[in-house]
């Protein structure tokens, strides 16, 4: 770990503090409230998963934290504190010093994220030379070490290759190596394995986990796949229509989920331990339009437990136990929930 000493961080404390973050896009059809008042914090070395369906704002949330948003037609609000520094008011020039060095990101499609006409070695050395001022020789040495760390066979040969000469899994490993190059304290991974095959996905998830642990690096893993976050995070945020609807430590979320949306999302996945032809529980309707979201609870039009209260009063996040918050008037286990379960049980009995 020659010059990767920078990678080893202070062990504890709050790394990121997000307060009432909102990102709205001005479009011809109206203002799209993609992220609408999100607050949470992330500790050093903590691995956080953000899950939700397409269009729930999970990607925009991670980009809003980094500040990777278009300059025009965007309304931003709220605060992002990174190790005590406010990022939302920072100049672009200052933010560029943080991107790559302190906060790194990997994306879904490794092919389009790599430069197709630049050799792998040069691409990997670029952040080192820019952020750490490494010399060519020094950078080369670190790059070789990085390629070994991410499990790339024959690293010397790869330095001279282009992205198109590598397989999808190999490209994603290169992306990870590039993200790790300057020893960031937080890695944003936006659907990092969605484009990969299941056996390769398992390898990449293991690699990300191993690197987070070794470098005490925090992780924000954005995905639609509850299976991916279950095995690879400490804490999970469930988003729906631009809001956090539930946030809990991973084990708690799966064993004691409170929000009916989390429950429905979980139930709608086909499971390997159920016999074939098991009837799946579906969520009726579709995610709401974020230009004019429903009043009250945004999930109420699709929720089986909805009452008048849900359509008129928006539920605030409330605490179930320390660290576990949910936004619902009739959570899993409540009287209303039990009542509907009984009536549903009658209707779907025998299946």
């Amino acid at each position, binding site marked *: 770990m020659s010059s990767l000493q920078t990678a080893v961080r202070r062990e504890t404390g709050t790394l990121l503090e997000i307060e009432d973050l909102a990102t709205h896009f001005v479009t011809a059809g109206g203002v799209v409230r993609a992220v609408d008042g999100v607050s949470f914090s992330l500790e050093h070395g903590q691995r956080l998963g953000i899950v939700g369906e397409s269009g729930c704002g999970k990607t925009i949330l991670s980009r809003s934290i980094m500040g990777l948003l278009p300059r025009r037609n965007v309304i931003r609000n709220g605060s992002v504190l990174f190790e005590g520094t406010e990022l939302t008011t920072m100049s672009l020039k200052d933010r560029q010093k943080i991107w790559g060095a302190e906060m790194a990101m990997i994306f879904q499609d490794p092919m389009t994220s790599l430069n197709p006409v630049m050799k792998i070695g040069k691409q990997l050395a670029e952040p080192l030379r820019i952020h750490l001022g490494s010399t060519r020789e020094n950078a080369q040495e670190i790059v070789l070490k990085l390629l070994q760390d991410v499990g790339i066979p024959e690293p010397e040969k790869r330095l001279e290759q282009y992205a198109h000469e590598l397989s999808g899994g190999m490209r994603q490993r290169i992306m990870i190596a590039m993200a790790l190059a300057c020893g960031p304290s937080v890695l944003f991974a936006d659907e990092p394995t969605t484009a990969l095959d299941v056996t390769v996905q398992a390898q990449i998830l293991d690699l990300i986990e191993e690197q987070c642990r070794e470098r005490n690096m925090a992780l924000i893993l954005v995905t639609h796949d509850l299976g991916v976050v279950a095995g*690879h995070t400490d804490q999970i945020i469930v988003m729906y229509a631009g809001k956090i609807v539930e946030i809990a430590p991973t084990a708690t979320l*799966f064993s004691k989920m409170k929000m009916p949306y989390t429950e429905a999302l979980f139930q709608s996945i086909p499971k390997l331990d159920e016999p074939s032809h098991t009837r*799946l529980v579906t969520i009726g309707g579709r995610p709401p339009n974020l230009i004019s979201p429903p009043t009250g609870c945004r999930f109420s039009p699709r929720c089986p437990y909805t009452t008048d209260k849900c359509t008129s009063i928006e539920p605030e996040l409330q605490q179930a136990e320390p660290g576990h918050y949910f936004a619902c008037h009739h959570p899993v286990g409540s009287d209303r929930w039990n009542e509907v379960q009984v009536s549903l049980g009658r209707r779907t009995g025998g299946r």
Partner: protein
Amino acid sequence: MAGTGQAHLRPDALLSVRDLVVEFPVGRTGLKVNAVSGISFDAQKGETLGIVGESGCGKSTTGRAIMQIPRPKSGDVTFDGQNLMQADAETIRRLRTNIQMIFQDPISSLNPRRSVRDIVLEPLNIWKVGTKEERLARVNKVLEDVGIDPAVAADRRPYQFSGGQCQRISIARALVLEPKMIICDEPVSALDVSVQAQVLNLLEDLKRDYSLTLMFIAHDLAVVKNISDRVAVMYLGKMCEIAPSDDLYRAPAHHYTNVLLSSIPVADPTVTVASHRVEGEPPSPVLPPPGCRFNPRCPAATDRCRTEEPQIREIAPNHFVACHHPIHGGEAPVTVRTTGT
């Protein structure tokens, strides 16, 4: 393990595929992509056959080869007693009314400039089924069956619908000629989990109501298990294992099936991650490894696997595997035949 053989075929199947070979040339290099290399399987009437495998294993090519798009290089495809490989273009055109396909991306598989009614009506117009009124009545019936309200939706165009609704419209279009079989090529991969569940349930209902036979091609093993009666696992253009789905998932015999199953991320943090990880990625189908095609990545590979291609054989009732050293079911008997690929 990826091997050949026909021990698992049944005489009374609706669709029967024998020794199917599909190859594509690689530019002018003289090389070829061995997309599908001698696979055999069948599907009985009313059955759902799932086909799983990683990208590049030839599962979509197999689906298309059954439809004769493009014509396979060799092999036999028999549907409802008729050999499609020897049939002329007109016969195949007529037969395609009985085998329909639905695709992964529902939005791009619908004509954006036509109304939903026209899209679903077109097959009926082509085949001049009944009078105009009868055709329209049939379109409305099919749209209702897939959960689209014809009164509201029939005059709209595909871009006005979500992905899940477009997939329903694709299904309606496939159903309108009342086919015997539908080949579904990754029909739910582009959909969110909540919508995916709706479409899977819909396919189950339609299969019953229209007495369909389904071939369900997907990479998601949990999805395939949910919908299939039997599941076939493919690797690099070869068949690895074929068994009733509950048997296959409970007791996989092929090492590749086992690796696939243990690679799936499970939505339960209390499940300890299995250690059956596999190194590397599938090799190129241009130069597949000799012997068993899975041998370079297989944890149990021996010299025999590197030289002799395994033949498919029955190791338990209806459970077929092409592997010399399966996880259960005993070693393959030694044969004199050796196949280099």
